[in-house]
Each structure stands twice: as structure tokens, then as C-alpha cells.
């Protein structure tokens, strides 16, 4: 019968129309600003810099090694190294980025910076609501805008952040054990010479990784 195919199709549309009221699989509209699609943990949007502790300037994990700057495919990261050093999470004095800019008008959210970072300092954010009228200032993020706390990292990527914290804690424990062993050895060796113990002892870390897995 001519028109049978069309009728079949129309029946299908009717089924879908009715189905959209009952079946969740038909993905009906999410009323965006009020409702949101359930966040997916792995989501990535733009990079941010993780800091430990309260003060973002003191706690930045980044040591300005510039690996991400070199590996960034569209070259949207700009880093200037600091002249002075400050202790990192294990207490080792490290240089820090005096300037760390990401041009998110160029960033392609590829996550390669995260992959190559040996210090777990740069991670992917999930914030996407960044529409702005400001072409230049609004899209060039500097350190203060990029720095976000480890707690925040835990809220957006809990599993990944827990893994990272466990790894860092392990590393820190290793370093501390090493330092303790060195200190003990130095103390034992310098049992006769009382002044020798002091320089071998490492400074206690200024910042501890907050919210650790331990």
C-alpha cells in the first residue's frame, strides 16, 4: 500500500513521543541552568594548578620545570621561573613559577600537560562556564586564576586525586625516611662532634599535602 512506510514511520515517532514521558533512555531535555547532567568524573576542560595547604602562593606544587610548556601541542602555556627557591611538598627547596599563564583561547583541552607533569602539579578542571565579553583579559589565565586547592581537586576528580595523594604521600614518606636515616647516620657519625647534626637535618616541610589518603 502506498504510504505504508510513511505510516510506519509516524507510528515510530508517536512511540518515541509517548516513550519520552516514561523512558529515561530517551534522554529528554535537561533544563540546563537549573538542572545539570550528572557530572562525569573523568571530564576535562581546562588545566589548573594544584596547591596544597591554605596559601596558594606558598603551596603551588609546580616547580616551573617547563615540561608542560614544551609539550603543550598548541603552545598555550607560558612560564617564567622564579629567581629564588621555596620548599616543595617534601621539603626540598625548588624554584616556582614566577609567572604561569595559560591562554585558554588557544588551549585544546588535550590533557598532555597533565600527562607529562612529573610533579602532579597541573590537573584538568571541569569548569566550562567561561563565556566572556573580554577577549584578552578574560581568556588569559594567570597563576592566581589557575591555582586551585587540592580539596577542590578532590571534589572534582575524587578517585584520581586520592591516587595522586597516595602516590605523593608515599614519595614523601620515602624522602622523609631517607632524610631520617641520613640524619641518624650523621648523628651517629657526629656523636663526638656535637655541632654536625644540625645541617644534615632537613627543614620540616612548609606545606603538607592536604587531604592525604593516609
Amino acid at each position: 500500500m502506498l504510504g505504508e512506510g510513511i505510516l510506519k514511520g509516524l507510528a515510530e515517532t508517536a512511540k518515541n513521543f509517548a516513550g519520552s514521558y516514561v523512558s529515561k533512555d530517551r534522554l529528554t531535555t535537561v533544563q540546563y541552568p537549573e538542572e545539570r547532567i550528572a557530572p562525569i568524573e573523568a571530564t576535562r576542560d581546562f588545566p589548573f594548578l594544584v596547591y596544597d595547604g591554605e596559601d596558594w602562593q606558598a603551596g603551588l606544587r609546580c616547580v616551573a620545570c617547563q615540561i608542560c610548556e614544551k609539550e603543550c601541542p598548541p603552545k598555550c602555556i607560558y612560564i617564567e621561573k622564579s629567581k629564588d627557591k621555596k620548599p616543595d611538598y617534601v621539603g626540598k627547596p625548588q624554584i616556582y613559577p614566577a609567572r604561569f599563564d595559560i591562554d585558554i583561547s588557544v588551549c585544546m583541552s588535550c590533557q598532555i600537560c597533565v600527562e607529562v607533569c612529573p610533579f602532579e602539579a597541573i590537573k584538568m578542571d571541569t569548569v566550562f562556564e567561561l563565556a566572556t565579553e573580554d577577549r584578552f583579559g578574560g581568556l588569559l589565565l594567570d597563576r592566581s586564576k589557575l591555582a586551585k586547592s587540592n580539596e577542590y581537586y578532590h571534589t572534582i576528580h575524587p578517585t584520581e586525586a586520592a591516587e595522586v595523594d597516595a602516590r605523593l604521600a608515599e614519595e614523601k614518606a620515602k624522602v622523609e625516611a631517607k632524610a631520617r636515616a641520613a640524619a641518624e647516620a650523621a648523628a651517629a657519625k657526629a656523636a663526638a662532634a656535637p655541632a654536625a647534626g644540625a645541617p644534615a637535618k632537613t627543614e620540616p616541610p612548609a606545606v603538607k599535602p592536604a587531604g592525604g589518603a593516609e
Partner: protein
Amino acid sequence: MKTLEEIQAAIEAAVPGAGVEIVPNPAPSGEHSLRLKPETAVEVATFLRDDGELALDYLSNVTGVDWPDKEIAEKVKVTRAVTKTVDGVEQTAEETVEETRKRVEPGFLEVVYHLFSMARSHGPVVLRMRTGNRSDRVDLPSLTPVWRSAEFQEREIFDLYGVVFKGHPDLRRILMWDGFKDHPMRRDYVAPDDFEYEPTPHDEVLARAQAHRAAQQAAAAAQEGTGQ
């Protein structure tokens, strides 16, 4: 499928004087290629397509490669044993001259064809052709009459590399606009200067952004100078 040597022999038998060379490929992929002489390329290609056993009826990929003039300085360690000015010791030790004498290996453009057989499900057979140089002897025979799939790809090579395909039915620029003069995929191509705003520059971009700013400042200074 036949080995490359067998294919070479078959070509020589079918097209006398074809002069096909085997170009080895050291990569683990082991895809060695055949270099054709431009004069006999169309004949050889027709043979490859029509031969019952090879039946390379499907030309998958056509691409250009630019090999610019290479200045070989260090490789000219070939003992220029002319230096007898020494006080009487060995002459071969006179390697210092090489720095000043640089040999320039003339560059060329290369076109690479990847052939497969749909009828017999084998491949790839890789063909290559070279132009005489990179400036005035850049014509090669077009293989579009043999395989239609070369049509747009050869146009692309003409556009981006500047290889002129003789016998191509419609050789025009394809990706860039018609009035465009350069061949941007060549390795010595310099992109136009639009480096005003580069907040995160690196290497070459940094250099060009700085050059751009210097030029702008100079222009501004000159304008101020004329204004006063």
C-alpha cells in the same frame, strides 16, 4: 603478492628501459618503494594496474615530500688530500678545510604513491618520483589518467608543493585560493606576519612576535619623527 624484486623484474620485462629502482626503507614497517623515472612512469603505472597478477587497481594515497637543498658540511670529511703544504707529515690529517667547503646537495620534490589491489586484496606497493629540482624543473607526469583517485590529491600537491603534473586534466589550486602565490607545505615557506598578539610565545613564534613588535615600534617612531 610478488616481492618487490619480482615486481621490478616484471616491470622491466613489460616496459623495457623503465629504469625502476628499489628504495629501501629501514623502518620496521618494511615498506620499501620503487622509484620510477618520470619518462616511463605512466607506462609503468598502466602496467601495474592492468597486470593480471599485480592488479594494483586502487591508488590510495598520493603525497608530496619536500627535500630542500641540503648543505652538507660535516659529511664532506672525504679527505681532500690536496694539502701538501704540511711540513712533511701525513697529508690525510688535513681535515680542517672541510668547514669552509660546504657541499650543497640539490633539493628536489618527491611524490609518493601508495597502491593497493582491491581485486586481489594485497598491497601496498609504494612508488616514488622525483623532480629535477625545486624551482624550474618541477614537472612530473600525472597518473590521473591511470587512476582517477590521483586527481584531487595531485592537485593538492600542485597547490601545496608546486609540483606541476603534466597531463593532469584540471590542474588548479585546490586548498588555497587562486591568487595565492606560495607553496606553503615546502619547508622553506615563511608564514605571513600576524604575530601581534602572542601571549604565550615559544621559539619561532617568540622570535617573530618580538620582530613584529620591533617593526611596529620602529614604524611608530618613524611616524612620530615625520609628524614633528
